[in-house]
């Protein structure tokens, strides 16, 4: 099983290694824009209970960025592989378990999310942010990447065109990016919206990363929520892979 997971991961690692420099460079653009616009520009005059607004939004930017990167690192290629390139057949024809494929792909998505987050953390220090990543921080980050990499696989199996994948991004990821305690506290939202937002995984990733990144105690509930979402999406992904044979 481990060997099979490693094989699936190995393929994605080979592709990533070949373009690692370009990949890291591309991952810097969006965080720099966020840090300039919200950290230096808009955030210069905003004070929060956590200190500067820059310190407040860096964990949020890490949460939303690792979500987007992990989701797209799995969702788009697997969807293309299933519908257009038909390379998914190579795995379906091989004597490996469905779970191995799903786990291998999710881990590959996690790796990309972690690399991207490392880039943001370095940039945040250069912008003058105060962040102290510890073990809890890394656990929350890993789980956030894993949750959305698994969701990417679920979406890739459910969506039947590139346009549908794009719509999934628009209707699911984009609203979460802005509402899930990334740029402002969810407490400021109307009660009914706040209640809904509290159910979403990115909100808990933001909470966990913010608390642990500032040296505080990690909210265990958030870790439990992230683990639960990961288990749920992983299970759905495995079921969908089994049903991919018409």
């Amino acid at each position, binding site marked *: 099983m481990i*060997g*099979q997971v490693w*094989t699936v991961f*190995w*393929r994605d690692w*080979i*592709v990533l290694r070949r373009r690692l420099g370009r990949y890291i460079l591309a991952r810097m653009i969006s965080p720099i824009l966020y840090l300039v616009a919200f950290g230096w520009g808009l955030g210069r005059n905003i004070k929060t209970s956590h200190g500067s607004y820059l310190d407040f939004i860096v964990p949020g930017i890490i949460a939303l960025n690792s979500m987007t990167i992990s989701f797209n690192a799995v969702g788009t290629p697997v969807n293309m592989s299933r519908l257009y*390139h*038909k*390379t998914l*057949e*190579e*795995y*379906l*024809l*091989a*004597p*490996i378990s469905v779970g191995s494929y799903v786990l291998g792909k999710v881990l590959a998505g996690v790796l990309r999310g972690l690399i991207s987050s490392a880039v943001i953390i370095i940039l945040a220090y250069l912008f003058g942010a105060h962040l102290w990543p510890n073990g809890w921080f890394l656990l929350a980050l890993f789980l956030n990447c894993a949750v959305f990499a698994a969701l990417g696989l679920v979406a890739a199996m459910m969506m039947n065109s590139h346009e549908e994948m794009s719509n999934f991004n628009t209707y699911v990821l984009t609203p979460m990016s802005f509402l899930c305690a990334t740029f402002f506290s969810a407490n400021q939202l109307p009660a009914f919206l706040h209640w809904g937002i509290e159910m979403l995984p990115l909100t808990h990733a933001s909470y966990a990363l913010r608390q642990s990144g500032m040296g505080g105690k990690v909210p265990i509930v958030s870790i439990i929520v992230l683990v639960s979402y990961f288990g749920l999406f992983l299970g759905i992904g495995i079921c969908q892979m089994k049903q991919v*044979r*018409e």
Partner: protein
Amino acid sequence: MIEIAGLTKKYGDRTAVSDLNLAISRGELFGLLGPNGAGKTTTIKVLTMLTQPTAGRIAINGCQLPQDERRIKAMIGVVSQHLNLDIELTARENLELHGRLHQIPVEARKQRIDELLDFVELRERGNDMVQTFSGGMKRRLMIARALFHHPQVLFLDEPTVGLDPGVRRRLWGLIRSLASEGLTVLLTTHYIEEAENLCNRVAILHQGKLIALDSPSSLCQGLGEYVVEWLDGENSKSRFFADRLTAAEFVGALTTEATIRRSNLEDVFVELTGRKVAE
């Protein structure tokens, strides 16, 4: 080697394959011939477990589907109709990935990659990205990939579709050499020439049903080895004869120009369905 009994596959109300019964022997080069939509690819997809049958029993080398799925996967090689190589990998990496997926040890993998790249004459392009390959090169690499784990049965779904005649003949040579080494080959095609040149036996499918099954020569001889074609007004007419002499006598009695040629599998298909394979 392959036993298919009562295979039926339905997609909603549409029946893609209907009550198919076939037995293919070890070392046989067997062809499924028919036009697009005849059920050839669906049959291959069911046999390779890419889709599940609606009804029927399938056994490959004594292993039953779907109970022995893992064992069957280890003993079959598949060349899909689509060029489904990983274009983000080199030729070597594509083979390496396949070897890893089939749990072939490192040293054996390295040796096998070199062997197969030699076999399909791609050794010098081994480290090149697959996206730079021509269609024929990709198809050869797909055959190498399908052979990597020493399968006992090779499934080829329209192996030469879209290739120019020279490349097609080169691939035929490759496929013949595999069959001569004892590999069981099941291929689908809608090219008459391909079925006639390659296959020991051919199953002709039409609208999901098996309508004829025999060697190409026997199927043609069943109609008559020679066919006379002539124009009657604006209508094209044809008639089959067991030998050339009788055909020539018939032509001599005609008042219009006529041609004599050997019958082929296209004639068999037209006689059985009233349509051409290419239609």
